[in-house]
């Protein structure tokens, strides 16, 4: 695979990351935000894979596994939190959960 593909793959990671980021920024629905974070994590993982593939080393994939694990844990805890928030506030609006105002 050519270097240009590598660059393209990195760019793909960047684009996906940006899309996730935009989503986090514009969404008020807290589940959407969680999904967007997943997209971003996935994009980051992609970047690792690209790097590992570029140097033909397993480290990139190892990192991806770590990210995966973390994403899984994050989703489970995050969803539990979402449930809790929904039960307390009866809404999924993240702006409503703004009690920690300074």
């Amino acid at each position: 695979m050519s270097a240009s593909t590598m660059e393209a793959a990195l760019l793909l990671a960047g684009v996906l990351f940006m899309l996730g980021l935009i989503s986090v920024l514009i969404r008020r629905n807290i589940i959407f935000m969680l999904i967007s974070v997943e997209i971003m994590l996935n994009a980051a993982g992609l970047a690792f894979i690209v790097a590992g593939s570029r140097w033909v080393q397993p480290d990139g994939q190892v990192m991806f596994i770590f990210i995966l694990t973390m994403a899984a844990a994050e989703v489970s805890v995050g969803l539990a939190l979402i449930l809790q928030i929904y039960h307390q506030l009866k809404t999924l609006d993240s702006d409503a959960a703004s009690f920690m105002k300074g």
Partner: protein
Amino acid sequence: MELTFYIAAAVAVLSTIMVITRYNIIHALLYLVVSFLSVAVVFFTLGAPFMAALEVIIYAGAIVVLIIFVIMMLNLTQEDVQREKEWLNPSIWVGPAILSAVLLAELVYIVAAGTPPQTEGAVVAVDAKLVGLSLFGPYILGVQLCGIMLTAGIVGAYHLGRQKKKVIHRFLQERSAAA
């Protein structure tokens, strides 16, 4: 192989755009599955078949299913979709989009500027055995940490997800008292 990569990449980008523009959360999740699958294809083209498999199983499988379960528990209706529409008007998303575009532009610039040394030829697959060896070799500590984190995640999810009717957080209690 390259063509596969580009097609998969295009699909990934398109489906992700669809994810972030949907009002109905189930639709968004379906597109998300597509996005994950296409990224898995990209992994495959990059010579990481095992990771592609994991991507399919865990991201497209487990995580998305988990989210769907939760959505089912939340019992969302057409009203929520409507509200989503109200929340997502252009005035809200233009600013963040510009910001992200700037960030993207910088990333592109960095990738383009820092040209890596050319390595021609086919992709050399890094097989799962090698990954496993390094996981349980130099990265053993990280694996253990991941284990701890997962345990913590399980415990945390259980603890947080429990329905405690009586006990409300004191902060929220004050809130409700004030209201």
